[in-house]
């Protein structure tokens, strides 16, 4: 049980997928406009992450190594489709608010990254807690940013007006505000860690491209890169 708690804590803080690993930032930037949307997105992603982690970990001995990425994508896409259908049927307004980003959970690096880095090497139980920790870590950050953006940019919190009309900084809810708030969140984290005496230099996860996950985040060189070098020889 102690190990499970450690895994959970790892996802929530030590290796927070958004602020420390810097994975899947598209949806964080786009959906953090309203607290409601952020909460929905966070829970949807957590659900998909937990389910895909469990299934992939259960099947880890059956999936051949060469075609593991397509297998993972099929598993992930299945759960995303389930979430899409459930939300469309029961919470249509949330479905509308999340828009394309709900479908884009399929290519979210956090999920593929965890499948590749954790679920295919660990037991089902551990993978469950890893998915839960990572998912909640993501939810925590996206909700945190959205509280600030909704309050300052729109003057409301969960739809209730807190700051009177006319005192909002609109740009915070728009695209530049998303980048700006994310940058500030990261800078605050860096400053806090710096005070503790820890050096932290965030790098975009997966070597800077969601696509790299396709090749396995863990230090594997792109397949074509290798073959093209061979061809040159």
């Amino acid at each position, binding site marked *: 049980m102690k190990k499970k708690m450690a895994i959970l804590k790892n996802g929530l803080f030590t290796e927070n997928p958004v602020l420390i690993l*810097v994975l*899947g*930032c*598209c*949806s964080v*930037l*786009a959906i953090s406009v309203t607290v409601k949307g952020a909460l929905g997105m966070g829970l949807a992603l957590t659900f998909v992450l937990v389910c895909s982690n469990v299934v992939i970990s259960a099947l880890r001995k059956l999936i051949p190594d060469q075609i593991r990425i*397509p297998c993972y*994508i*099929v598993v992930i*896409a*299945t759960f*995303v*489709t389930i979430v899409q*259908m459930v939300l469309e049927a029961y919470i249509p307004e949330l479905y509308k608010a999340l828009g*394309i980003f709900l*479908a*884009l959970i*399929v*290519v*979210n*690096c956090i999920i*593929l990254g965890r499948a590749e880095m954790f679920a295919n090497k660990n037991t089902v139980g551990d993978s469950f807690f890893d998915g839960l920790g990572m998912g909640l870590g993501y939810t925590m950050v996206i909700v945190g940013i959205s509280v600030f953006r909704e309050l300052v940019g729109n003057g409301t919190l969960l739809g209730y007006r807190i700051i009177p009309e006319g005192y909002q900084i609109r*740009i915070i809810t*728009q*695209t*530049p*505000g*998303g*980048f*700006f708030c*994310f*940058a*500030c969140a*990261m*800078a*605050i984290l*860096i*400053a806090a860690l*710096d005070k503790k005496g820890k050096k932290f*230099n*965030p*790098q*975009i*996860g*997966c*070597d*800077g*491209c*969601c*696509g*790299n*996950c*396709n*090749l396995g985040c863990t230090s594997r060189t*792109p*397949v*074509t890169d290798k073959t*093209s070098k061979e*061809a040159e020889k």
Partner: protein
Amino acid sequence: MSEGAKLLLIVFTMVFTENYVLVQFVAICPFLGVSQKFDSCVGMSGAVIFVMTLASAATYLIYTYVMVPLGLAYLSTIIFILVIAALVQFVEIVLKKYMPPLYKALGIYLPLITTNCAVLAVTLLNISDEYNLLESCVDGFAAGVGFGLALILFCGVRRSLERANPPKAFQGLPITLIAAALTSMTFMGFTGIADKLFA
């Protein structure tokens, strides 16, 4: 609205007013990750334009002629991602065999694109916007051009950023994000232009 005007409107919208990266927050990872070197920006943009146009056409055909008749439209997410993955592999093999120079230029960027969210986004939005085949292809092409434009512009911004001296906490990724915020602010200037221009 005539067909030509509609196509022009799609191009203008996707490149400027609804730019995927700087307005809609799709494909942020490659935008931040690849924009350090000019050469890789150009290569990546070329590969994205190429794959997006092809993927738009392929998914449109599969959706209209296979999925709708079979009543599988609800599986679009799962089918499209597989179609894109297969398409990228296929393109890679064909380019390698028949067009080695193009393969050399785009080759290493192609596998990076399978899970690029912009490609999946453009194919899904083509369907929800009910575009026909030509419009889908133009939409994919223009979205790719918009991505390339943002990437290359931002590459220039990052070059001058290297000489900047930000506060300690902002060094590295945070100041890059601030620069992205300023770049995206320039694109806000296009808001609302498209409809009046082609009305």
